[in-house]
């Protein structure tokens, strides 16, 4: 595929949908919704993000932390869209991401946390939950999953648990972001840790050599509800089949219901968030 074709592929109509649902177990225990999701258009493309605030009481402001994480990720992607798009090779894009995007989003998140603390200083009850060694950002601890689509590239970045699934035009689904053996279901890497930049896992895809039909970002409340293991191959194939049958706008409308089922007592019972971008098939136009 030529660069021009790839550019057309990246600029075709994408249906984007996000959904965040409070988990049934959170409702039962009175815990707030601690997941967040969002997307925004950036220069020449799109950015999507989801985040999962840690549930442990040590991270008592993680509901706010996940909101700030999504905002920081999308903001940094918009700020650096042109820089990322200018990369010549996937390896260059990874280097640029590690050198610029990751530090930028971490800086934005840390600054946002500081501002939130200035607006709402810790109360006495919260101060009792702070451990002596904790940095000021620890109460806001959150994961972050980010996808940035430019004219040529699909960039994926993740810190902490959750899933990023890429579906090809033939329905083949992959999880390109490398795994992390430190994630054991009870502990996760986090934006709030001192070496957060080193814990970001990245992947980049050249849209010219491998077109993309859909990208799904989901917090672990979504994946932990899925019975199949691994769950994404069947999910990706079904997603594309349903999109071909009903159209991507139908898929977009369904996403909140799917996320709600995952967060229900029939599923993981945990908060669940998802951000989905799905391309229209040839000849399809958005309703």
């Amino acid at each position, binding site marked *: 595929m030529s660069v021009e074709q790839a550019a057309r592929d990246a600029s075709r109509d994408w249906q984007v949908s996000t959904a965040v649902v409070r988990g049934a177990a959170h409702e039962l225990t009175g815990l707030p919704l601690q997941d967040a999701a969002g997307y925004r258009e950036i220069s020449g493309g799109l950015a999507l993000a989801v985040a999962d605030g840690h549930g442990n009481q040590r991270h008592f402001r993680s509901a706010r932390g996940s909101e700030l994480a999504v905002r920081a990720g999308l903001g940094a992607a918009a700020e650096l869209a042109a820089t990322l798009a200018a990369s010549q090779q996937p390896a260059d894009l990874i280097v640029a991401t590690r050198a610029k995007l990751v530090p930028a989003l971490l800086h934005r998140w840390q600054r946002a946390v500081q501002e939130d603390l200035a607006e709402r200083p810790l109360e006495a009850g919260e101060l009792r939950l702070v451990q002596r060694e904790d940095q000021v950002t620890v109460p806001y601890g959150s994961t972050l999953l980010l996808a940035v689509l430019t004219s040529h590239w699909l960039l994926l970045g993740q810190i902490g648990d959750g899933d990023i699934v890429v579906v090809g035009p033939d329905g083949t689904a992959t999880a390109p972001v490398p795994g992390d053996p430190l994630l054991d279901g009870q502990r996760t890497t986090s934006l709030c840790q001192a070496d957060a930049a080193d814990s970001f896992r990245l992947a980049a895809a050249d849209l010219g050599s491998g077109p993309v039909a859909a990208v799904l970002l989901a917090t672990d409340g979504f994946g932990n509800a*899925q019975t199949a293991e691994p769950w994404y191959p069947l999910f990706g194939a079904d997603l594309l089949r349903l999109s071909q049958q009903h159209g991507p706008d139908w898929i977009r409308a369904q996403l909140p219901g799917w996320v709600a089922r995952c967060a229900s007592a029939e599923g993981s019972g945990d908060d669940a968030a998802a951000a989905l971008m799905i391309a229209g098939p040839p000849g399809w136009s958005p309703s």
Partner: protein
Amino acid sequence: MPESVTIMPGGGISRRPLHFFILADCSGSMKTDGRMQALNFAIASMLPQLAAWEREQEQAQVLIRAIAFADRASWHIAEPLPVAGARWKPLHHVEKGLTHMGAAFRLLADALQPGRLETRALRPAVLLITDGRPTDPAEFDAGLRVLFAAPAGRAAIRLAVAIGRSASSEYLSRFVDDPAVPVLVADSAEEIVLQLTTASLAMSRLSEVGADRGDIAGRLIQPSLAGARAPDDDTIV
């Protein structure tokens, strides 16, 4: 029902599995004072309590497995059995049977090796019930090492119930591996039922969260404190 309500891509959804392993002593001494019958009665009484807990919470599906050990260890329930509607098939003591706990640990470790549990499974729970001390001390240590070498074995919520005062709390404490978590002692059939139920419910509740073992101890000592907990009590590495 409209198609849009029922269709969801993928292989369906379900609650997260909570694998609950029972390690039951069937050595010869278990025939003394009707301990074997008491153990069977206690487990049979415990299962409906676990099933009730499963219904009350919003996250886990409890799956039971059991290992019987005496001269050797073998699966009494080999395949994960949903606790809802589960019926306990009584165990029988082995005449003059020894107490080879190490063999039970090895068998359990096999089931906890990487890839044997679902990646989305909650922390497994392991309940050891015995009336004696291991008759295979060297193998006890070796088996425990094998169990702890498996990440899921190390991470498991582990509790022990000693039937009678002759059980060795020293060995059972090493199995639990936390001085803050008590070995539960039951002297009578009624106490066995109470302790098993208390232990199993505490373990189930704690398996779904990232609670530390001190928290387990607190909940065992003061069961009234036990309640529904956060579903994703995760914290940073």
